[in-house]
């Protein structure tokens, strides 16, 4: 039994329709598979970020512990030793020898200065204790230390002194951020003027540090990953879900703007 031309045509058309629909379903399947792939990709990326964040957190904790140990050592051992030396030197009675007396006086002065410096250093290292009195006070102490170091024209606007809220974990990281920024300025910037501005607005803590130093190529430092200090600052900001913007112009200086959700 032979089929008529119309029947043959209908079969061919129907088969062509199937052949047309098959790739369409294939494309739909690929899109659906790709969506699953996206979920997997996002999950993987989240896990990676979480892992990096954990590593960084551990790293900071270890660093903090090390600093605390050093601070305790400085304060309790070396500090005590120096204090004892002062007492011993004080107890020596040499009225007949003016020169020896003068030397001992000088030594005493030096030892006292060392004790003072060590105490200051211990305070800086012992971040947790500093931030206990609030982030505003911790920043103030850091600025006071910077004033004592001298050599910089400081313009400070610290509006965090009377804060009614606090976040101990973030406070410590914010303090370390500021310390890292100031250390970078002292070590590399060759600046003569530093401007520090801090304030809290709409549950966001703003920290701005501007200086008039030699500046640097920020993008190059970021891509070449040469600025370890800078990378560390960025990682710390990311850890507390903050934002950082670095504007640097060679021979003009650098401005760093940090925004952190707070508390």
């Amino acid at each position, binding site marked *: 039994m032979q089929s008529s*031309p*119309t029947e*043959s*045509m209908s079969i*061919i*058309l129907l*088969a*062509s329709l199937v*052949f*047309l629909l*098959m*790739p*369409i379903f*294939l*494309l739909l399947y*690929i*899109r659906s*598979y*790709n969506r699953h*792939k*996206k979920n997997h*990709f996002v999950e993987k990326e989240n896990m990676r970020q979480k892992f990096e964040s954990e590593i960084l957190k551990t790293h900071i904790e270890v660093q903090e512990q090390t600093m605390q140990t050093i601070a305790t050592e400085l304060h309790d051992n070396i500090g005590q030793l120096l204090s004892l030396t002062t007492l011993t030197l004080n107890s020596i009675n040499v009225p007949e020898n003016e020169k020896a007396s003068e030397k001992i006086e000088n030594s005493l002065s030096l030892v006292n200065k060392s004790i003072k410096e060590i105490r200051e250093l211990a305070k800086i290292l012992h971040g947790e204790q500093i931030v206990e009195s609030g982030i505003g006070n911790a920043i103030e102490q850091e600025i006071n230390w910077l004033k004592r170091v001298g050599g910089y024209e400081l313009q400070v606007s610290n509006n965090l002194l009377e804060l009614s809220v606090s976040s101990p974990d973030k406070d410590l990281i914010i303090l370390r951020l500021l310390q890292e920024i100031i250390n970078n300025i002292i070590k590399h910037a060759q600046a003569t003027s530093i401007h520090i501005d801090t304030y809290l607005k709409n549950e966001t803590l703003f920290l701005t540090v501007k200086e008039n130093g030699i500046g640097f190529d920020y993008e190059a430092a970021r891509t070449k990953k040469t600025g370890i200090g800078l990378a560390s600052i960025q990682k710390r900001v990311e850890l507390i879900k903050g934002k950082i913007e670095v504007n640097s112009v060679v021979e003009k200086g650098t401005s760093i703007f940090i925004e952190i959700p707070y508390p």
Partner: protein
Amino acid sequence: MRYLFSFIVITELISLFFGIIFLIRDKSVFWRTLLLYLFLSVGTEILGKFCAKTYHTNLLVYNIYIFIEISFISYGFYVFLNEYADIKKLIFSVYLAILIIYIGYFIFYGINSYNILTVSIISVVFVVYALMYFYLLLKDENYVDLKFHPAFWWIGGTLIFYFGGTLANFFDDIIRENSFGKYGTRLFIYNTLNVFLHGFWIYAFICRARQRKVCQ
């Protein structure tokens, strides 16, 4: 003049129009060549209609166009597949083999016989290339948003066109002898496939323009 503007010509003209809007500023050689290809496609269709009316045959025009089609579509697949695998040698070898068949057919049957053998073979080859691309795309570890991925839509359209046209090519002789209602069956199938092909391609142009804008 009206007879020159058939359904296929209008579809291709719309595709060319959108191509000019979205791709004219594109710096990629492939996307720019695509404009030329669309222009040649429209030109072939119009010339084909003119020759059919004037000389009662247009097979020579379409036979020449097959060469342009093989070259450009192979180039397109080379560009997209090359992102995932080193297939330069494979595509070039297959391209040469197709050209040999293409020329061989004319030696045996003459230039005025429609080269359906080559058309059927390239349909299968392009379908394999498209499936290869999708396999590599899915196998790739990196995720791409297919909704705005021009390569996906370009290849998607091409796959539908060549896969959907496979039966029409294989049963070319039967189809030519019969018609479906008022229209020729072959024409009916190819009009439908062309709508899909150019619809997908137009969307690929939009994705490409968006991709270019995002990258700028």
